[in-house]
């Protein structure tokens, strides 16, 4: 059965309409940009130098993981996913439709940091390229969690823990070199390093780490998808 753009877009449009009424999506979308604005105007500049890239990084890590996994879990739990699958929507069409929606939300949300982080025009492309690659890694992780969990109850803690660990590790690595020895292989560390010192840290090595992470998540996603599809 071939993939249909029409059905994929139907899923995407549905999610867009639902987003305006879904408190979780609205809250997650604004959480880190709002925190970032508050920090920027409340805290002294010395404090915000690390905090703002940290919030940006957490936004890139947490928003896609939490949204992707929770949307899938909610649809599994409420039976809407089964109705969709029985209505001829392919599991992959559904995942692409939802993934595309989460990607758009995460990109818009991350773009708000262009204002708070005072990114120079020359580095906007690097900022966006790093953010987009990080978001893709996070979407894949969210999709994996959505595939393996059965409902929102089981998804919430798992996606929360994974997103927190990935998002917080760069902060701890800043204080502890032994953690950094391991975290340097994580995409979240590379994304943070680039966002923190965008002029110096946008290296091939960092970008390779993000690429390899994305590839690993894609392979894991592929095998889990092949085995489980979207079975509840």
């Amino acid at each position: 059965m071939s993939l249909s753009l029409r059905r994929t877009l139907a899923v995407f449009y549905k999610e867009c309409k639902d987003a305006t009424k879904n408190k979780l999506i609205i809250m997650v979308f604004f959480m880190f940009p709002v925190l970032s604005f508050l920090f920027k105007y409340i805290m002294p500049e010395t404090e915000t130098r690390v905090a703002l890239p940290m919030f940006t990084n957490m936004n890139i890590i947490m928003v896609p993981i939490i949204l992707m996994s929770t949307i899938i879990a909610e649809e599994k739990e409420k039976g809407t996913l089964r109705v969709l699958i029985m209505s001829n929507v392919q599991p992959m069409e559904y995942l692409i439709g939802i993934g595309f929606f989460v990607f758009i939300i995460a990109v818009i949300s991350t773009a708000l940091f262009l204002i708070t982080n005072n990114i120079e025009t020359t580095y906007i492309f690097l900022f966006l390229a790093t953010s987009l690659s990080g978001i893709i890694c996070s979407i894949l992780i969210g999709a994996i969690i959505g595939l393996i969990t059965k409902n929102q109850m089981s998804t919430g803690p798992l996606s929360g823990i994974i997103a927190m660990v990935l998002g917080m590790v760069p902060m701890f690595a800043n204080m502890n070199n032994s953690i950094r020895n391991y975290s340097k292989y994580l995409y979240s560390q590379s994304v943070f390093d680039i966002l923190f010192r965008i002029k110096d840290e946008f290296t091939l090595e960092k970008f390779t780490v993000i690429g390899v992470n994305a590839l690993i998540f894609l392979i894991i996603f592929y095998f889990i998808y092949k085995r489980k599809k979207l079975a509840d």
Partner: protein
Amino acid sequence: MENAIEINNVSKQFDDVLALSKVNLRVANGEIFGLLGPSGAGKTTTIKILTGQLKATSGVAKIFNKNTEELTDKEYSKIGMVLDYPGLYERLSCYDNLIMFAQIYNIDKKHIYEVLEKVQLSDAIKKTASSLSKGMKQRLVLARAVLHSPELLFLDEPTSGIDPATAEKIHELIFELRNEGTTVFLTTHNMEEATRMCDNIALLNKGVVVEYGSPEDICRQHNKENKITITFRDKSTVTLKNNKENAGIISRYFEEDKVLAIHSSEPNLETVFIELTGRSLK
């Protein structure tokens, strides 16, 4: 007449539970077929096998002459389903719940208004699904199931837990669909619903089909006592065996102008089911 559904020797085993045992059924095109049985009899399992959601452990189930394990876009586009739960997007309006499926099936948006009119939900078009009553939700689910004018409609307990007035509306809609040529496969544990609506039924108990045929034929076949109940003008009743010996007595009652009504006391599906299985349908 061609069959829309054929089930040949289908069995389904879940771990140590045999949910279906060598079930054989035929549903002709354009008929309303009822699968009747108490909770846990295997009704939903049968629907899941027929719609490709479950694989049979053994045997073959076919819809439109195609094995249900090999259903494609083509067959799915001819099927409508009301499952055992609504599966509605609670935060979206009735219209938005349907427009998504109109896009999936590539149907003109105008058809949404027609279908909502059909299920009498035109006034609730902008209401969110979460604000609808249970009966209205069920009608919206039905609207979603028939949006693409399916040839075969599966209804899993369509009127379960719904008030009689809404159930009546749903029955009318099912008749209307049948008159338009849709084959309807419904499961229910409501014997009155089955008797009234179905052309043919199968009684299912613990995964085994214990009786199959039209509701009238089944009741007639099990009318072993063959009795007649006479209601007199003074509202009293008498039940007599329907035989030659009692013919004279009955004729005398008529001559004396005592009879208000006379009817055969055939069993209903509930009593047939109890007779066959020793348990109630409910």
